[in-house]
């Protein structure tokens, strides 16, 4: 049984989310392990400083993975996501404290293709009021 929304139930302009996610240092470590991205700039202050960064920043791919949640929470079945892409426009700095960085995600159905029964969804990610992803969009196979 398909969990994915039926094409007929979706309209252009439908809103997804919002989703608020906290990125703390523990999440960076978990994500590094889960994704096999062990780039030192995401956990070593001295390495980050040596390449001119003012702190530890989240993996762009972590921001993207969290943005993907807006789409999969809506689609219910992550297997319905056929394409997902983004540009990385701004860094998310993650302080070494109990609070971390807070990123707000929203999405909207931007276009529908009745032939393919797909939805084009755009995602916005904001950190400190500024977008951190550019042109983030997914193609979802509706049921």
């Amino acid at each position: 049984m398909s969990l994915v929304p039926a094409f007929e139930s979706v309209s252009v302009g439908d809103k997804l989310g919002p989703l608020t996610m906290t990125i703390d240092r523990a999440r960076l470590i978990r994500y590094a392990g889960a994704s096999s991205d062990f780039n030192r700039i995401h956990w070593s202050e001295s390495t980050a400083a040596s390449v001119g960064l003012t702190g530890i920043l989240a993996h762009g791919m972590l921001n993207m993975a969290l943005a993907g949640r807006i789409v999969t929470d809506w689609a219910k079945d992550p297997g319905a996501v056929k394409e997902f892409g983004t540009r990385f426009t701004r860094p998310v700095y993650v302080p070494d404290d109990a609070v971390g960085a807070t990123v707000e995600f929203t999405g909207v159905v931007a276009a529908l293709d009745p032939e393919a029964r797909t939805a084009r969804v755009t995602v916005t990610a904001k950190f400190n009021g500024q977008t951190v992803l550019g042109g983030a969009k997914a193609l979802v196979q509706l049921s």
Partner: protein
Amino acid sequence: MPVDPAFVGKPFPYPMSYIVGVEKIRNFAEAIGDDNPIYWDRAAARSAGHPDLVAPPTFGVSIITRAQDEVLFNPDLGLDYSRVVHGDQRFVLRRPIVAGDELFCTFFVDSVRMVQGNEFLGLRTEMADPDGELVGTVFGTLVVRGPDA
């Protein structure tokens, strides 16, 4: 120093396959705080029509890491990783990637172009099943900051 143009357009098939693991999918879901049952509960994934747990949309990064790093960290390529910024990333799937999939990666440097002193590397990795059938493609752009950037 620009990267060696001899790498552009050449397929780099990685000899070792990547086998998608149930626990690896759960670890990834945990890292992004996602309790979607299709990442956790094999029975739920099966009742949604999948052979096993489904990988999250960006899970392909773990699949392609070794194939990509093999080339990106080859000293002959001449990439100064300390000056690299991730420009963009895109995943295109022909079918969902599920636990138990065995995938073979072929990596390509599609393009190298200089824009305002920064070098843009267009990367692509194709993921194929053991029969050679394409399952999905991962695209990425790395930006090597120029000396003035």
